[in-house]
């Protein structure tokens, strides 16, 4: 009965904390801004290219047997002239009526007369080289197929000794990298909200009213859950923002795609579970620290918020070798497990036993951390005017376990 009542109160506090900070309007605006930025960058580029669609006109004086043919897509038009017309062509060039004069002396030498460095030089160079190669192939009596075969690369088939994914593409690696970055962002935002919530309540003297109605443990439990779900919602918004960005860019031919493997529902559920567990773990740790802060503007403890950078950032190393021994160990260590195992799940096949052990370990450590955080929170939250020293905090904890 009492447990039910407590759970109900934890739920009410969690709901309050979540609704206090989560603004659906802001999340929708973030999504719209992402779509607009993608539209602006990729759509804008496409529009700009169309606007600046002026044809390049080049006069060509060909004294060789080289046949220069350009694709229509290049938007370059060639006009044939004789060498005797060079002076009048130079006049036209001076008046910017043509963009250049190309004189092909023989198959090895050509001259390009222009007013400024041309953007289309590579196209001309490439096509002249191709035309020259055709002549040279003909002269050497080697077929084009034979030549292609000579320069073909050797084919190496990868044959793995352990069961794992056939191939981890750049797309998956990029997706995993983006996921860690967003997870880190979610953790930081969650911690920031937790800091502001707790230190703000302390400064506004709200704590005494709440503590007279609910126990500090109930209060902190609700706060941790509420803020962790807020972090999760922000993470989902950022992932959706990235997806929208990629999809819109793709409409304008960016060539970016979302790897099919990361859309697997089981993987998505796994990532969700590990993300929310990670957020709960970090928020539990920092709720206790926030409660000890007297004035957030002057306290040095605020800088502890940067602490997750190292353990969460370590997961970036898993991108290179997700199945290395060290990454397998870090998959079980609570400070690093959630980002590392998430990356490994995206990039490789992780054994279900590893996943269960990793999850169990972080849940158990969060449970104990929650008890300690509750103790620190209950003693610190009504302490105005001074910050308890680390020694005092450790004394509280040792007394509470006696």
């Amino acid at each position, binding site marked *: 009965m009492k447990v039910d009542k407590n759970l109900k*109160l934890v739920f*009410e*506090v969690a709901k*309050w904390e979540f609704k*206090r900070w989560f603004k659906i309007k802001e999340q929708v605006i973030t999504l719209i801004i992402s779509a607009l930025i993608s539209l602006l960058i990729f759509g804008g580029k496409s529009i700009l290219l169309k606007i600046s669609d002026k044809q390049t006109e080049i006069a060509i004086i060909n004294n060789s047997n080289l046949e220069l043919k350009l694709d229509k897509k290049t938007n370059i038009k060639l006009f044939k002239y004789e060498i005797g017309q060079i002076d009048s062509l130079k006049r036209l060039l001076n008046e910017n009526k043509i963009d250049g004069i190309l004189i092909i002396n023989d198959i090895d030498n050509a001259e390009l007369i222009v007013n400024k460095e041309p953007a289309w030089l590579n196209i001309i160079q490439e096509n002249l080289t191709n035309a020259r190669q055709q002549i040279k192939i003909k002269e050497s009596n080697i077929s084009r197929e034979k030549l292609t075969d000579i320069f073909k690369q050797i084919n190496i088939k990868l044959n793995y000794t352990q069961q794992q994914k056939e191939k981890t593409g750049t797309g998956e690696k990029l997706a995993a990298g983006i996921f860690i970055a967003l997870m880190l962002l979610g953790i930081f935002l969650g911690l920031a909200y937790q800091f502001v919530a707790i230190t703000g*309540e302390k400064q*506004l*003297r*709200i704590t*005494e*009213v*709440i*503590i*007279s*109605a*609910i126990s500090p443990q109930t209060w902190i439990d609700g706060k941790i859950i509420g803020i962790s779900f807020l972090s999760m919602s922000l993470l989902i918004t950022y992932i959706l923002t990235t997806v929208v960005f990629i999809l819109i860019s793709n409409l304008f031919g960016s060539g970016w795609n979302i790897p099919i493997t990361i859309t697997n529902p089981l993987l998505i559920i796994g990532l969700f579970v590990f993300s929310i567990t990670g957020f709960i773990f970090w928020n539990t740790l920092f709720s206790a620290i926030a409660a000890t802060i007297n004035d957030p503007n002057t306290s040095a403890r605020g800088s502890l918020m940067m602490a997750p950078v190292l353990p969460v950032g370590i997961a970036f190393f898993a991108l290179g070798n997700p199945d290395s021994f060290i990454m397998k160990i870090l998959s079980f260590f609570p400070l690093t497990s959630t980002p590392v195992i998430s990356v490994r799940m995206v990039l490789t096949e992780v054994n279900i036993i590893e996943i269960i052990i990793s999850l169990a370990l972080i849940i158990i450590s969060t449970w104990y951390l929650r008890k300690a955080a509750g103790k620190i929170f209950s003693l610190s939250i*009504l302490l*105005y005017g001074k910050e308890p020293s680390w020694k005092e905090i450790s004394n509280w904890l040792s007394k509470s376990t006696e």
Partner: protein
Amino acid sequence: MKVILKVDSIFKRFGKINAVNNLSFNVEKGEIFSLLGPNGAGKTTTVRMLLNIIKPDYGTIEYFFDNSAASRLPSASQLGYLPEDRGLYQEIPIIRTLEYMGVIRGMNKVDARKASEMWLSKLDLLDRKNEKLSALSKGNQQKIQFISSVLHNPSFAILDEPFTGFDPINQEIFLMIIKELSEKGTTILLSAHQMHLVEKIADKVLLINNGKSIASGTIEELKKENIASEKLILKFEGNPDFNFFQNDVAVERIEKISDGEIKILLKQNKSLSELLIKASSIFKINSITTEHITLHDIFIEKVKQDKEKENES
């Protein structure tokens, strides 16, 4: 009357200061009990100990609700608390904050909303229910804070300095509201330093100074116990020597108000006419006013006696 709060010899020391020193008292069901004392007397520390926010170094605190065994604390729904250190969520609409406060004190959301609206209407703030608290004046914020502490209709309400921050008109309004709450069955423990206000509503008072009890009982009892019974305010022509009054048998104490004006506290059952006859034969008296002894006078008197006892010991 049934005792619902029993406090026995509680003591709390902060560093070298005895914030609360062996305080004992009982609160009976339905009464308005007031802890009275100047700032720093130990009232708020006592209140925080009653709520288990801080623990006494020794002594016991027991609550007796609904014929059940003694408990250290009432349940959240039985208790209302207005702390001295006040604060609520500034950037959240008032109605949402009030609903939340009701819900964590055991109400369902619908009832919490109804009760909030009823109280907001009573205090002329219903039209501002969707505004943020920060948009309200300090006095109105204080009203919201009060609502948050009683909207769940508690059996026992602890109101720490409820009149602080209010203008005289609102102080009177809150006197009425506290009285109404009491009439509807809420037992009230009031901690305040505005003795003239407490005097109007308290059934019993406990006077505290330096963490110690210096007097307790109903206001009538305290007045009877007091050496002085009436106050006499005299205005003279010129600036006479007031030492004349100091030696009179009817005079308990004199206080100079200004040049030519004094306040005389008269001893119980002593004749006023003799004193006035003697005084008028020596000085020219321009005006005479009499007043009943107030809680303030009793408090000053008790503090003085307490100091004298301390000096003697």
